Every structure is written in structure tokens, then in C-alpha cells.
């Protein structure tokens, strides 16, 4: 009785207009349509969403945590990208 199980989908929900879709979890579904419907039933039972994205988990490409030093640390030293890096004389507002 070997059978191909339904593939895994990652679910992203927009909770209200103006906010990004946010990853909430995963589920199993045979096709995109049912993945959306299942996501609706599983992840928005309490009005948590107004829009749903689903994507086959196998299609997600993720960065490797082993690379995180070289990927993300270089940004840490670029403090000049942040407004707090700059001195603004007292009395100057709206900046």
C-alpha cells in the first residue's frame, strides 16, 4: 500500500491591508487550490487573514546558516547606514 503522500506547502498570511504576508506554518495538499482552501481552514479560523499565499515547500530556496557570518556580518560594520550615526546640532528638528 505504498502511496505518494501529498506534498508540503508553506503558508503565508496577510493579516490586514497594509501589512506583509507572514509565514505561519505548513500543510499538506495535492494541488495549489486545495492548499489555499486548507490554509484558509487551518490558519484563518479566527479572522487571522485577508490574503493567503501558498508555495510548495520544495520550491523555497534558503540561505545556509553556515554562511551567515559572511552573508550578514559585513552589514554590521556599516553603522553609517543608520541615522543614529550622525550628529545633529541641538535645536534642529524635522530631520
Amino acid at each position, binding site marked *: 500500500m505504498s502511496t505518494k503522500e*501529498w506534498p508540503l506547502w508553506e503558508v503565508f498570511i496577510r493579516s490586514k491591508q497594509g501589512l506583509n504576508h507572514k509565514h505561519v506554518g505548513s*500543510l*499538506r*495538499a*495535492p494541488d495549489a*487550490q*486545495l492548499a489555499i*482552501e*486548507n490554509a484558509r*481552514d*487551518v490558519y484563518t*479560523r479566527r479572522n487571522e487573514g485577508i490574503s493567503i499565499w501558498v508555495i510548495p515547500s520544495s520550491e523555497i530556496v534558503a540561505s545556509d546558516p553556515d554562511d551567515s557570518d559572511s552573508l550578514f556580518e559585513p552589514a554590521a560594520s556599516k553603522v553609517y547606514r543608520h541615522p543614529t550615526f550622525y550628529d545633529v546640532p541641538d535645536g534642529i528638528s524635522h530631520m
Partner: protein
Amino acid sequence: MNNDLYTYTLRIADDSLILGQRLSELCGHGPILEEDIALTNIALDLIGQATTLFEYAATVQNEGKTADDLAFLRYEHDYKNVLLVEQTNGDFGQTIVRQWLFDTFRVLFYDALQHSSDTQLAAIAEKSLKETKYHCKHSSEWVIRLGDGTEESHSRTQDALDLLWRYSDELFFMDETDQAMIAAKVGVDLAALRPIWMERIQEVVQAATLTIPTNNWKQQGGRLGKHTEHLGFLLADLQYMQRAYPGMQW
């Protein structure tokens, strides 16, 4: 009281209650976790619709009864649901074919009923329509998946359609109650919905590679309180607490 309006409302309420009760038997036993949740959502919508409709029926009846009195404390022949909704769940094919035949009808029915001159019924229809459209989409898609899927699923789904087709005609049952309600611009002329229903059913049947049964012998009686053997057992469960512990608050 307005007898016709009472009976009319009760018929709609009973369809929702009995089908909701049937679906709720499946909670915890669905073919996969996700579908278990989906079926329960449909059950919840139906129980919710039934509750509002019974509340309204109780108001129309004006005998001081509650929605629960109507839902739980009538005798078998006082339930006016169509025979289709009391049929057992069978396998998932049977559950979904029953749902789809009913949902396709219900969408058209609520769509028309939301224009009722009775503002209560119109409001209930408008709210229920949104839910029912989703049910109908879900069940129609499933009929297509199952009909077209594998040899086994095809034959199971065709069997279910063969079994349940005889109960589909009753969805369009009309008697003097309906005539009175249509005349009062409260009720829906079901005869007008029938060709659209058939068209939608055929669309799905075709996509599902199924065949509409040629057996045209139809069963009816539910609208008048004459049921199949299945209803009694369903009511035995439904009414158990109210019958075993009469008159208590829960």
C-alpha cells in the same frame, strides 16, 4: 402565527441542521487532517445557519419556544428536511457528492432568497450565501478530483452519484406553502432554479468524467415529514440529552 412562513423557515433550518449533524459525525475521522478541518468548518457553518433560522422560526411561531426546542424536541415526522441531507456519510465519495448536490442547490436558493420581502430571511440568506459559495466550491472541486482521479475513486464517486441522484429531485419540491410564500414575495420559485442547477451539475459531472444516472425514479417525502430509515437514528443521537434529561439547562 403565519403558518406558511413558519413551515417555510423550518424547512430551510432542518436542511442545515440535519446536514450539519451528519458532517459533525466525521469530526476526527476525515480522510486527512486538513480535510477533517474543512468538513468541520462546513458543519459549523450549517449549525450556525440552523441556529439563526430556528430562532426566527420560533419568533414566527410565537409560542414561547426557543431555537433549541425546535431543533431538539420535535418528533421525527415534524422534521421537514429533504431526504438527501439525512443520508448516511458512507465513504468520502458519498459525503462529498451529497454535499455538492446540496451546495449547488443552496447557492442558487440563498442567492434568490436574499431578495425576499421578508427582511429576516433576506438577511440570513445574504450571510449564508457567502459561506455556501465556499462550501460549493470546495465540494465541486472534490467531485472533480475524485471522479477524474483513479479508477477506484472514479467508480466510488459514480456509485455515490447513482445512489444519491434519486434524492436530488426533492430539492425542487414545492407545495402550497411555497406557492403562498412566492405569492407573498417571501419565497423562491424553485422551478426557475432547476435548469441552472442542472447546468452547474452537468459542468462538474463532465469535468469529473462522471455520468448522470439514467434512473429517473425519484424519492421524496422529507418536506412533508416522511423520511428514510436513517433519520430516526440520527435523531436518537441528536435528541439523546434532551430526551434523557428533560427540561434541564446545559
